[in-house]
């Protein structure tokens, strides 16, 4: 397994476990930890945790919402001016989660760099 895949899987696992006990920012913590333990290179530093968490949030949200016929998702999509489109809301959810994870991934990597240099 290459590092990218490792980081990806690891991020999702930690994020899932932490999310059972911690608030939404558990995904930031997860990306930070995996960025620290499994440092990546270049764009992957951001994009691997981004994609991991975006995917996780989209899948989780989709499962919660499809069981209830997207009743609320459509309303929230209206509220957030997403044209009442629940797919757009799922993408927005992924984007927000991904962004939070991506920047934490960068920070995790920088922690790793700083730590290693000492």
């Amino acid at each position, binding site marked *: 397994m290459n590092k990218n895949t490792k980081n990806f899987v690891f991020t999702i696992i930690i994020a899932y476990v932490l*999310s*059972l006990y911690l*608030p*939404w*920012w*558990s*995904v*930031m913590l997860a990306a*930070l930890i995996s960025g620290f333990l499994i440092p990546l290179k270049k764009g992957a530093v951001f994009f691997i945790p981004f994609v991991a968490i975006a995917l996780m*949030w989209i899948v*989780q*949200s989709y499962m*919660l*919402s499809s*069981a*209830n*016929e*997207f*009743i*609320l*998702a459509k*309303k*929230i999509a*209206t*509220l957030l001016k997403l044209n*009442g489109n629940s797919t757009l*809301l799922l993408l*927005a*959810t992924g984007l*927000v*989660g991904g*962004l*939070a994870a991506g*920047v*934490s991934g*960068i*920070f995790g*990597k*920088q*922690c790793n*760099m*700083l730590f290693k*240099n000492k």
Partner: protein
Amino acid sequence: MKIFKFGLSLVLAITTFYALNTKLGSLPPLGKFLSPNQGVWQNEITESENNKEISLKGLTAPVTVKYDKHLIPHVFAENKKDLYRAQGYVTAQHRLWQMEFQTHAAAGRLSEIVGETALNYDRTERRRGMVYGAEQKLKNWETDQEVMDYVDAFANGVNQYINSLKPSDFPVEYKLLDYAPEQWTRKKTALLLMYMTKMLAGGDSDLEYTNFLKKYGKERFDLLYPDFFDINDPVIPAETDWSFMGNATQTPIPDSEMPLDYIKKTIEKPHPDNGSNNWVVSPEKSYSGNAILANDPHLGLNLPSIWYAMQLTTPEQNTFGVTLPGAVGIVIGFNEHIAWGMTNATRDVIDWYKIDFEDKTNSNYKYDNAWKATTKRIEEIKIRGKETFLDTVTYTHHGPVTYDANFKGNGEKVGYAMRWTGHLGGQNQRTLLDLNTSKNYDDYKNAIKKFVAPAQNVIFASTEGDIALWIQGKFPNKWKGQGKFLMDGSNPEHDWQSYIPQEYNAHTKNPERGFVSSANQHPVDESYPYYVFNDGYEAYRNRVINDFFRSKDKFDIQDFKDLHNNNFNLQASELLPTMIPVIEKADLSSDEQNMLSKIKSWKYNNDIDEVGPTIWQIWYNTLAELTWDEIKNDSIALDYPFKYQTAYLLKNNPNDKFMDIVKTPEVETASDLFLIAFKEATTKLKEIESSKGTLAWGKNKATYIGHLLQALPAFSRHDLPIGGYSGIVNATSENHGPSWRMIVEMTSPPTALAVYPGGQSGNPGSKFYDDLVDIWASGNYLKLNFIQDKNQTDGIIFSQTLNPSNE
């Protein structure tokens, strides 16, 4: 360099966290809000957990809650304290956010949630003494230990629910506005009843009338705002004999001066259409020999609905109806023996007194030729994201000085104090609880005695065959004209001298005509010994209802449904025959000809597919504005005359000075106004027709049910296909109308139909959020499942058991 990169990435991470964890402007904290484990996705739920066992501290025995297919809970408890604890828990499950929001609104605490935009609203609520009134209520309730026990059990039930929640379980509105529920208290129940008191008895026009009187004089005032209309079909039948009130005497008129001040801007009033219909026919007038009762309170149409339906049962009582989330027991409903309903008994129960302060500290005011000390209440208004605002409200023996140098007043040393029955306390919660268990007329009569405000026309029917209506509230015994205008706060003779004894409140039991009804019209005719002045009484719905019940001998359930859904526009039917001949004689363009022929073919029904009501309403509104241009364009606060009186003057005083349009050089008469208004209306109607594509009434009235939070479109329902209008028996206007329609036939046990424009769940993610809306809009009802045996499973979709907890 590494340190720099580290620092930069740290800042980036912190900034991102902050941005996604904080409410920015109207945008919720997006990270929190959209996360699947904590955010709105957790609210994507329709209630359905079957056989759930919940442990509840303080219960003495298990309580079973069965939910029917519209999520109406049927609660079976072993005793009342368990019952009301369960009521608190179950209500909070479905309506927590609303319960808290409404009591925050009553307490003037909205700035805490939504920020500075609500500050003026909050100050107004504090200054009309809403919190003070709730405290007065509590003082009264605390003398009644049994009531206190139930109120506290209810609060405890709510709190056990709140305490069981994780932030991810909070209702979606908390997540949207990023705050958390606080504990429920007995004071919040009192605040909710103040919220209702303000809604129903919080309006008056005294200061507007004073402005009018000062500007135009008494003769003009009496013409525009008469004590009685030329027609009157009162709540208590005109033929009622008052001789049992032998020694009843009106307060004599004191010989004194009234202050005449101009008040530029007055505080916001409740919706003028807050009102209701109710009626009941006696066994003799009923198709089945059982009395039949109906009620439909007209209130603002909101989601979550103001009402929450429940069946509340112990071995001693079995009561079904609607509750107000936050108050204990059923408010309008029925049990095995009786049914009851309420309409608002509008009366002038707010008066204003001019206060002369000794100096600008407002510490003393003139009273009975001496200086009397005031008390002060410092109102602390927390504002989200800002410093707390402190507002000192001065209190006199009359009540709070709402207007003073700091708030909409007339400068230093002058104030206007409010005297309101809403501040008297009373035992309303006791009345509600006693109605729940009443078995006959005497129980009902005793139950309502302690009800103070908002005064209600409490209609009654029993399986024994009695029908009745009491106009119940605490009413000051006023001298003729007292309280129509601003009074002198320093003159003891201007105080309310006494109250009408409760047993002399107007009422009727088993009247000869075989029916009783009320629709916010004049409570009595001029023969009632006490002074009652026209507080904006309804003059249309009541006549349609009473004429209907006079029209034949027997009535059945279909008749009741038809009357709820009756769209006959009596006002139009009385005024159009005077207006149309004027237009027929005039020179008209082809558009105008066309509009005229359309309205001429209208049969006065405000049905959704008709274009007549749209033409009529725009024509009439334009006409009213032209007629009352003097009032509309004035910079001081004035009220439009009543709808009925406007129509009366247009027909009977066509050459009155008020008919003239001030800004034109000509002198107009009513006929001129009809034509000018018609031409202006045609232009507006053509515009509407081209922009909306139709003049059909339903599409143009576009009734909507707005979410309680600023009618957020995403959580509201729009463009509902329902007819009627204000002043019509089906009183559904744009955002106001029948908030609960109930028909109860007094079989044993009673059989009931009912519906309300909303749904049992307060969660916009639930299919029970608005599942009753379409049923309501189409004029249909639910057959209420009045369960007699708690083991019945018919029509039940799931149940919960609340078990006593050992902790």
